[in-house]
């Protein structure tokens, strides 16, 4: 097993087709770094929008009011159902369809407010709209699954204490749903890092597109894709670690023992057993 890994690492490092020298040259290229920054900005902004929207849509979806639940269901259907590429193009070129965005009374009523679509919606705004609105639909399903995973008794206990539906959601249900919500949200965030590459259709050069632009010029496709992959892996590593600690945080009080953090595992080996840190027993559930 370890041999296998060693052999494959060897064959990757020594294979000339990977052109590791070129990888090194471009790893910190300005264009790549600019793309990286944009990727990060878009991911953070779109995920933030997606999560807020998702929580809202999920709560709506579970509402007893069929109109509210239906509206949310329709949104989820529509935005999950159409390709993000199309949504991005739509937001960017909404001007082709509606050259002016105006708010007013329809059917010839007065117009309150009107703006040129092209100037209101910059490519960055279009990218955010496209990615965020789309992500909201996916997050809604994830949050809904999380809410459903919390025991009905928790709702009832909260209600019997006089908490409103929203307070119950916010204070009681969602915090306990987090354990179930976090892993797929990690998936979504990591996906989003890469979905941002679709915004290249509206000419915003995030990480992958930056690499593509470079290899379009010099045809060093493989090393440049490796450069992009290295950066994506680095970002994923950071996110995975963040996810790990978030899961620990929201796992508090849950019915299973928390896994040790790598750091605790380390001290556990170095420091003798009976000298365990004082916080240890508190942290472990039944």
């Amino acid at each position, binding site marked *: 097993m370890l041999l296998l890994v060693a052999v494959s690492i060897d064959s990757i490092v020594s294979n000339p087709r990977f052109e590791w020298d070129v990888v090194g040259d471009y790893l910190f290229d300005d264009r790549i770094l600019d793309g990286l920054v944009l990727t990060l900005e878009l991911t953070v902004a779109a995920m933030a929008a997606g999560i807020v929207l998702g929580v809202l849509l999920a709560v709506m979806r579970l509402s007893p009011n069929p109109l509210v639940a239906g509206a949310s269901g329709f949104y989820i259907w529509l935005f999950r159902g159409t390709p993000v590429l199309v949504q991005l193009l739509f937001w960017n070129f909404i001007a082709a369809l509606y050259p002016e965005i105006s708010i007013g009374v329809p059917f010839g009523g007065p117009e309150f407010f009107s703006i040129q679509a092209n100037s209101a919606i910059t490519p960055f705004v279009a990218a955010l709209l496209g990615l965020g609105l789309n992500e909201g639909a996916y997050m809604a399903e994830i949050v809904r699954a999380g809410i459903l995973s919390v*025991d009905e*008794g*928790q709702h*009832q*206990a*909260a*209600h*019997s*204490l*006089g*908490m*409103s*539906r929203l*307070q119950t959601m916010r*204070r*009681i249900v969602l*915090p*306990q749903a987090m354990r179930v919500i976090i892993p797929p949200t990690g998936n979504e965030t990591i996906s989003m890092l890469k979905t941002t590459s679709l915004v290249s259709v509206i000419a915003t050069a995030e990480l992958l597109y930056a690499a593509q632009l470079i290899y379009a010029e010099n045809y060093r496709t493989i090393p440049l894709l490796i450069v992009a992959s290295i950066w994506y892996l680095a970002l994923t590593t950071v996110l995975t670690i963040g996810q790990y600690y978030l899961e620990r945080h*929201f796992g*508090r*009080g*849950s*019915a299973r023992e928390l896994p040790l953090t790598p750091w605790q595992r380390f001290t556990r080996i170095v420091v003798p057993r009976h000298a365990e840190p004082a916080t240890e027993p*508190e942290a472990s*559930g*039944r």
Partner: protein
Amino acid sequence: MTEPMVRAEQVHKRFGRLAVLKGVSLTVMPGEVTCVIGPSGSGKSTFLRCVNHLEKIDAGRLSVDGQLVGYRQEGDKLYELREREVARNRAEIGMVFQHFNLFGHMTALQNVCAAPVQVLGIARQEAREHGIELLRRVGLEDKRDAYPSQLSGGQQQRVAIARALAMRPKLMLFDEPTSALDPELVGDVLAVMRGLAESGMTMIVVTHEMGFAREVADTVVFMDGGVIVEAGTPSELLANPREARTRDFLGKVL
């Protein structure tokens, strides 16, 4: 004449085709302690849940402290209350569940303080002090930072009682509050409840602690098959039941 705290008239409740409450009528005056006994599946829990408007009743009339539960009457018409109003009414009724239902992500103390802070808007520090005091009353001041999953069943139920008391409710509903407690602790909890009763708290207690019922209850009610078979003072009902079914049940239990 004072208004009754709870007045149920011909309350019906069904789940699908299963009729669980088939016309329950009961009046509880302020300061009274009513104990409800009856076999498993007779609808005791369901009735308590209706009083707290956790279930909607299908027919009949149910009011707490003069206010219809879940409805507002204007003239002859009934209007369904909005969620916020239902919540406000529930906040004045404490409930202790058969299955604890502690909030799993909060420590014992946080469980006790959450609702007073969130719902009543009491200052955090004040709620905390009151919470510690209540935990002491149920014998758990040293477990205040433990999560429910780290407590035994008995410990969990005591936290649940403290949590309900923290809202300073005007009516307390107990659904077999001692059924998961160790015998040696049952006494302590019953003492708390006795203290509550003496301080004038109105209580409906579903219980199998006949000793408690005999000593504390003003009225004992025997439910079976979704109806109240018989009601009376403890001495009447427990010592000289009129109905055969009651006699039968008591014969098994005592």
